[in-house]
Every structure is written in C-alpha cells, then in structure tokens.
C-alpha cells in the first residue's frame, strides 16, 4: 500500500494544533514514515496539488477563505478537520455574538474601508464543506491525532468517544471542580482529552464540543444546588460549547 499523501492547510486560528503535530517530536519521524507530507506551509516550503488526505486547521472567517476551502475539498478524497476552530468554529465564534453591524461600526468608525476587515460570520469547516473526520480539541490531543492518522493509514474508523469528559476525569481520580466551587463543563463535553484540564486543577471549558445527547437542561437545573447562576453558566458555555447562545446542539 503506498503511503497516503497528506497536505496540511490552515485558516483562522492560533496554529496551536499544527504545533501539536510538531510536538509529536520523535514520533513525527515515525509519522513521516507512515504518511507522505506533501504540503505544510508552517513547516516546509514544498507545495503540492495532489494529495489523498487534506488536514485543515482553523475556522472560516471570510468569503475568500470559503472559496479556498472548497478548492481544497475538490482535490481531497479525505478531509480531516483539525482542532476546535476547524471542527466547530472554536472560540472564534465568540465574534458572532457581536452583531456584524456593530463590529463594522467599531472597526470602520476609525479606519474605514479596509476590505480585509469585512469578515463574514465565523464558520466551522463542516459548515462550508463535507468533513470526513474531526480531530477535536483546543489544542488537539497529540495521541488522538496520531491514533487517527494510523487509523486512516490502516483504513479503519477511529474510535472517538461520544461520552462526557467526566468518564476520563473520574478514571484519573481528579478532584471534581464542582466540589471545588467551580462550574465545570465536563458533563456536557465530549471526552478524548484524558480530562486534561481537571487533571491540572482547572475546570473543563468544553473545547472538544458537546458529547452525544448533552443534557443542557439537566445542567441548568443542577446549578442551584451549587449556588451558581445561570448567567455564569452561560458565560462559560459561550467560550466553546455554545458560542451562538442557541442552546447546546446535539451535533
């Protein structure tokens, strides 16, 4: 079986997910034996138009980016969304909470007429083109990325948990953030990160998106037992899980 050719592209984001690929360190050399990286602007000057797997990082914030993404999709037999920005729009979507007219007024009020600032509402990659696989997280988990790459090279479905972060969190015997007086979004968030945040004494912010059948109503009814306000919950949800303020989707 020839090595699949992989091209890595980026859109609006912090490039932290690409950095996680670099951070595979020695395993990056292993990865390069399994796949043939033919384009990766951040790390190399080589470029190519022919590839089997497109890995796309970043959210889509401009019409011209939508066009570029569609061109990539046309050439890509398989497309992988890398990280929260690509998977869900990530916290870039916080911008969508501000009415576009307000954004424009604030921006053009001082330095009007700069066309690059005329950004569209932020979209996830899957809101523009079909996505075959999602590697979630802000940033992605290196082990999960490696695992997905190996699955793709083998031609199998990767197993990505649909259950909440609490599963992994309890397995790691972390102190539960709720008991420490914080709002933790672990019960609503898809696992796979190994409960990275609670393991460091920080509450889960929901960067991997909602778990299957996330019970938002349940969460709202639990708040009072912990003396928390709905306002505070909504502020947390806004960062990653529910940036549009529409209620957590079950996607």
């Amino acid at each position: 079986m020839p090595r699949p050719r992989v091209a890595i592209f980026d859109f609006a984001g912090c490039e932290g997910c690409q950095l996680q690929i670099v951070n595979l360190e020695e395993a990056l050399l292993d990865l390069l034996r399994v796949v043939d990286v033919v384009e990766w602007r951040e790390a190399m000057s080589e470029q190519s138009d022919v590839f089997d797997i497109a890995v796309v990082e970043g959210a889509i914030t401009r019409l011209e980016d939508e066009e570029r993404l569609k061109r990539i999709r046309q050439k890509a037999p398989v497309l992988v969304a890398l990280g929260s920005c690509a998977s869900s729009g990530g916290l870039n979507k916080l911008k969508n909470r501000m009415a576009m007219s307000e954004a424009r007024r604030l921006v053009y009020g001082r330095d009007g007429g700069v066309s690059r600032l005329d950004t569209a509402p932020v979209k996830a990659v899957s809101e523009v083109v079909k996505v075959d696989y999602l590697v979630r997280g802000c940033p992605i988990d290196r082990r999960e990325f490696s695992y997905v790459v190996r699955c793709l090279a083998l031609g199998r479905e990767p197993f990505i948990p649909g259950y909440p972060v609490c599963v992994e969190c309890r397995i790691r015997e972390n102190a539960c953030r709720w008991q420490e007086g914080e709002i933790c979004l672990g019960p609503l968030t898809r696992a796979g990160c190994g409960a990275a945040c609670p393991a460091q004494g920080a509450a889960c912010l929901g960067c991997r998106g909602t778990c299957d059948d996330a019970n938002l109503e349940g969460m709202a009814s639990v708040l009072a037992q912990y003396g928390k306000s709905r306002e505070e919950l909504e502020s947390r949800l806004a960062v990653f899980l529910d940036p549009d303020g529409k209620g957590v989707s079950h996607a």
Partner: protein
Amino acid sequence: MPRTVHLDIHPVTRVEGHGQLVVRASDGRVERAEWLVPEAPRFFEAMVRARRWDEIQPVVSRVCGICSISHSLAAVKAVEEALGVAISDDARMLRVLTHYSELLQSHVLHVGYLVAPDLMGAPSVVPLAQTNLDLVKKVVGLHRAANEWSDLLAGRTTHPLTLVPGGFTRVPAPRELEGLRRRLAGLVPMATELAEAVLAVAGAVPSFHRDTEYVALRQAGEYAFTRGDIASSDTDESRPAGEFESVANEYVTPQSTAKWTRWHRDSYAVGALARYNLNRAELLPLASKWAGMFGLGGHCDNPYMNSVAQLVECAQILEDSQRILDSLAGRDLKDTRVEVHPAAGEGASAVEAPRGILFHRYAFDEKGVCQSANLCIPTNQNHGNLQKDIESLVPGLLHLGQDEIRLRLEMLVRAYDPCISCSTHFLKVRFI
C-alpha cells in the same frame, strides 16, 4: 546591471501565519517592495468583551499557539492589576520558570525547524531528517525537553492550564522540581551542540545593517522577560507597562494593511535582538560566551542576527532556570494561589514573548465582567520595521538572481520570526 524583478511570494512558508512579499523592479529601479499580511483578523478584543475575569486567560491564550504562555501571563498579570491581586513570590518565580519553558521551546522551534534549513540549503526540516539526522534529533530532543518542562509547570505545552489570576491551579511536587533541575542541567551540552552546528554554517547569515530603534523590557539587575519598564535603544527614558499605548503609537499607513507602530522614529523593532541590545549587560556567563562566539558584539543592527540572539537567550534561560530552581529547592510551595474577588478596575501588563514585547490591557465592571480590552502584539510592532528593512535591502539585491533575492527576503522575514496568527489584531477595537 539593470535588472527586472517580479516577485510575489504568497504565502511565505515556514513562518507562523500567512505573510506575503511583493517586489517589483524594472531597470534596476524598485517600484514596489512590500510586506503584506493577508491573514484574517480574529477580533480578540471583541471576543473577550463580556467575558468574566477568569475567562480572559483561556480566551486570549488562543491568540497564538506558539506563545500561548506569554499571552496567558500577560493576561493574568493585567487581570491581577485590574482586580488588585498580589501573588506570592514563589508563584512569581514559578511563572518565570513557566515562561522560560515557552521561550526555549519557541526559540528551538524557530532556529532548529524553520531557520536551519535555510542555512543548510534545504527546503524544510523533512529532507534534513535524511541528511542531518543527528542534528535533527538534537533539535527534537531539546524541543521535547522544553515542552515537557511546560507540561510540568503549565499543565500542557499549548494553552496553559495552571496559569490563573492569583497564581497556579497546581504546582509541581518538590521531587518533580528536583527532576526538572537535573533535566535542565543535562540540556546545556545539547544546546551547546546545536549552537556549534549553527555556528558552523553561520557564514550563510547575510550581512545587512540598518540603523534601528530597538524596544524591550528593562529591569535593573536582570535580563528582563516578565517584568520591568518599556525601554528604547534610542533614549535612556523608559515607561511603565501601563503607558504602553504611548510607546506603541499605532498608525495607519497607505503602504500596508497592517498597522504600524512608532515611538521615536517611523518604526521600531522588538524581539530577541532588541532584548539583547538593551539587556546584554545582564547576560549570565554562558550566554555572554555564546554572544561572543557568534560575534553579536556590543550593539547589533543586523536583523538576520535575531535568530542568533534567540540562541543566546536559550543559554540565558537554561542558566537562570538553574538559579531559580536552586532557590526553590526544598521550599514549601503551598501558598501559590490567592483568592480573587471580582471588582471594577483596569490593568495593563507587559511581557517579553519569544517574538518581542507584548502588551495587554483590560477593564472590568464590578462583577468582574470585561468591558474593554487592548492587545498589542510583538509581530505587529515589527511589521513597519520589517517593511523598512525590505525597502532598504532590496536595491542592494538587484544584482542577484531572482531565486537568491527571494531566498534573502524570505530569510529576512523568517529572522523576525513573525507570528502572523497573533498579529491579526491590527486595528484597535475600543468599546464606548
């Protein structure tokens, strides 16, 4: 030799984010030499508005995946100032250590993965892994060590988890700190080998000088990274972090879509070379030795040497970390988080990110909800200066072949180590 040159390099590869270089010359006359930033703006100041005080750090960490620790530090420091929080000395020292891990990681990444291929005539580190596996392994080893150092202190390498207003959510056990001390001591020989390998090909670093204003933090008695006042190589005057807007006077120029900054001249430079030029007297012995080895000298205005200054800083970081770890050894690190109470207020901070000085400012209402924010990022502060460098460099390159011109220009851009994904804040958003 009259030459016609037509270059449009888009994107410039092996930099963080999308940058574009356009050069047009005919008959030996430069018509256009421009550095453009086509990256989509992300509106972080808008994004943090209405966030609560404890959500600022996680949000602004995502400005940049490479320097997320610097952004996090800048954010928690500014939030602490706004809310009137004082952290313990131990927490402050741990923060310096955490910051160092990122500086080392970023510098090794830049010099080892992004710049070395230029000096060794390769298109990327991938073919270098075939031809110079030993060197690549050293780079990988250093990078891994720096990342694991971040893991230990920040909870992970990118988008730190432990850095919160008030201190740390989790601190390493004494035995973990002792392990780190030993590990870092072992890195010095490895870093030395990397420096020697770079020195061997240092002849490939172009020689180009332009009289430049350099801006960096300065703090008496230390090579400043996390605290101090804003200083310039042009004057002895310095300003507190809270006055950063009067330093980074952002202005729009018809020449570029990116906003430029100016203090005493039309542009200034920040970054490792700026820090070196302002703080070289404070370098510890090993770093001083390396600076001499590379001939950085008393004051250096060759922007290509920024990568060398980064290497010198690697030595500084490793040496100073030993000092800090020695002083933390055997100490009880329990009081590393103080309670924070939301309050109305405003605060600003300045931190040296790997790519240069970084400013944050936030204002909060009495519930601790953010009302306004301003982030001023190093790469933004460099855009104007990079443009000026290009303008001054290109006429002298016209006798070269198109490929060589292209390489020299790309190398210049890379030497600045621009982090364009972070710099996509190029208009200040003020909420009224």
